[in-house]
């Protein structure tokens, strides 16, 4: 279960606060997955008590966007901590789907990869198994079939430690790269933070989704949770 509370001392009207929280949630807490299971109790609150003396922030306030941006960034950091602590997790994985026809399908593709047990176990095993990623993209339940054009698809691992070459292309224009640099792949996959970039090439929208690897420990923890 996810529970969270974000507090601020700004004065924010309830409707502006609700709008801000929804916007942030759709780009943070609703873009994480540890095991693909949705709880009966997931709840996130945001409280603004107005203890700071300044004009109340409403949707039309000149400061609304600035505060909302901070809340999005803040929510993403908090949400990522949950994924880092995923049961048995050893890696934080960012799935970045870009150049999508629309945001919704970018998220559907990112979520499909993030919830694939075979992708997650491959990441735990540090196995550069692009086939599983491709498979998860292929069965994603897209809202618009035009979002995926297999001849435009590009999939890469991107190093998160600024080492070079930064990008390891696995699939380009829908064609798997047959001569993948396996030693470079091993270096990238050995990092505690992994980034998978999927370029759909069908539009301009982008979604980031955060997941973790799946290890033996997950089973150990959840085999007898009730007791």
């Amino acid at each position: 279960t996810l529970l969270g509370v974000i507090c601020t001392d700004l004065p924010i009207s309830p409707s502006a606060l609700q709008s801000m929280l929804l916007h942030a949630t759709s780009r943070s807490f609703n873009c994480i997955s540890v095991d693909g299971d949705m709880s009966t109790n997931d709840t996130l609150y945001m409280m603004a008590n107005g203890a700071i003396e300044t004009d109340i922030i409403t949707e039309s306030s000149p400061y609304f966007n600035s505060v909302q941006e901070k809340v999005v960034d803040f929510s993403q950091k908090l949400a990522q901590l949950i994924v880092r602590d995923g049961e048995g997790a050893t890696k934080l994985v960012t799935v970045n789907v870009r150049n999508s026809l629309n945001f919704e399908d970018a998220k559907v593709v990112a979520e499909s990869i993030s919830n694939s047990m075979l992708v997650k176990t491959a990441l735990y095993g540090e196995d550069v198994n692009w086939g599983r990623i491709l498979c998860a993209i292929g069965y994603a339940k897209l809202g618009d079939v035009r979002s995926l054009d297999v001849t435009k698809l590009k999939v890469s691992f991107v190093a998160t430690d600024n080492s070079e070459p930064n990008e390891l292309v696995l699939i380009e224009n829908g064609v798997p790269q047959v001569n993948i640099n396996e030693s470079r792949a091993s270096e990238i996959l050995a990092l505690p933070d992994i980034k998978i970039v999927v370029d759909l090439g069908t539009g301009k929208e982008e979604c980031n989704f955060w997941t973790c690897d799946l290890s033996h420990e997950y089973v150990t923890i959840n085999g007898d949770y009730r007791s």
Partner: protein
Amino acid sequence: KRAMNTVDKYSLYVPKSGVFPKCLKVASIASGIKKNGNLDLGIILNTHESLNGASLAGVFTTNKFQAAPVVVSKNVLEQQQGHNINAIVINSGCANAVTGEVGMHDARDMVQSVNSHIGRANSTLVMSTGVIGQLLPMEKVKNGIDKMFLRKGSTFGEDYSSWLNLAKSITTTDTFPKIISSRFTLPNGVQYTLTGIAKGAGMISPNMA
């Protein structure tokens, strides 16, 4: 073997200090819900005196089986239209989910108990996490709430240690408490603070609305 050789996530991801919003106090206690005696009950309290109290927004699970605290809190938020919510009470160790009318009564009882202590009606929201399908040990929960408010010197604090303990009190299988905070400046030069706590390690794929 790699997963067993756990990284010390606590030292990596738990900050050693923080900044916290003005006029917010928090408390936590080991009420006995958790069998291991760990912290399991916490309260966030707005102490800023204003006509409308604090504003509050919420997003909730879209699972069709919504736990009692979700249903009760949604009702409070709707009635208050996000105005004048001044406390949040949270327990871990028992989710109070799929517990029927008894669970609904217990969630309302938790809210009412805090409302009574702060002397404001309809001013508290509730969250629960833990095992599904078990009833809350309400005597322990209510005693815990009473102790937090009535203990000599009060257990409510606004310092780092109080917030860290609050973050700990809502954890279940988490290996570290999640707490972050930052101070920002508005274009008019006014400084404000964001502080966040969260919990979660498994059954995580939220779609809240």
